[in-house]
């Protein structure tokens, strides 16, 4: 029997944190080459200052959103969805950028279920819309905000 997910609207998801680590960014750049964001060589104290202000590329932002959001919910408890047997997909993602991502900084992700509705394509599925914001843990200023929808097939 398919669960009724309409009562999930308004549900606050758990807070999560993620560190935009140098390892993750470097591994990412090993696949998605962005020379302007490559790791600088550390030869001097001046270089150490540059490293401390190194930015991640905007192309890494969807990774931060996806990774961060996956930490904010439990498929079963929050979406009433059995990930082992069901099929889920990403739907639409919208992001507003408030400032660049700095390599090494930790970010806090807060999210809530803002809408749930059923749609019919080839199959019937529920769409769960999650509204999120991502802020610096240290400075508490906003980096990104937006919405991500998840498609849960019935």
């Amino acid at each position: 029997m398919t669960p009724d997910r309409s009562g999930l609207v308004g549900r606050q998801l758990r807070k999560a944190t993620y560190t935009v680590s140098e390892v993750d960014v470097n591994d990412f750049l090993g696949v998605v080459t962005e020379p302007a964001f490559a790791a600088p060589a550390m030869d001097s104290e001046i270089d150490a200052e540059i490293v401390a202000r190194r930015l991640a590329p905007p192309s890494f932002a969807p990774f931060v959103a996806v990774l961060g959001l996956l930490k904010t919910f439990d498929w079963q408890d929050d979406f009433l969805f059995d990930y082992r047997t069901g099929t889920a997909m990403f739907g639409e993602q919208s992001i507003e950028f408030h400032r660049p991502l700095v390599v090494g900084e930790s970010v806090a992700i807060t999210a809530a279920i803002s809408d749930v509705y059923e749609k019919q394509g080839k199959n019937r599925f529920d769409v769960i819309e999650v509204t999120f914001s991502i802020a610096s843990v240290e400075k508490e200023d906003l980096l990104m905000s937006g919405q991500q929808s998840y498609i849960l097939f019935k």
Partner: protein
Amino acid sequence: MTVPMSKPFFEDYEISMPLPSVELGPMDRYDYIPIALILRDTNPLHLDRVYAHERGLPDVVQQGPLNQAYLYRYFTSLLHDPWDLVATKMRFAANVFPEDMLSCGGEVLALAPLEAGGGIVTCAVWQRNQNGDTILKGEAKARIPSRP
């Protein structure tokens, strides 16, 4: 007229103007391993071709955020500063598989001048595979400076 590959200024943009398109690929299944590690997502759909075959798919599926990253890189490469990116909205429409060739492109939808100079350019953006199937479609918005 197409937006030139050299960094255009706000005055260079016109509504309905196509952005230059780029091709990339072929996609490499070995890239999915570091991406799975970064995403902490070891779903076998991205790594195990037998598992993918058993689910009726021709091969493992490239991770969606990686598809997005290529489209982000494409769009931000047109900007004077990649972090002039203001907003994006994207919909996942189809899967990408190893050896696929991808193309990225777009078109100018709206222009909004800023009092301080330059303006906000809103573009439709898309990513397609070698068969013309749409992988990602949506919009991207960025700040573009005025010609000095």
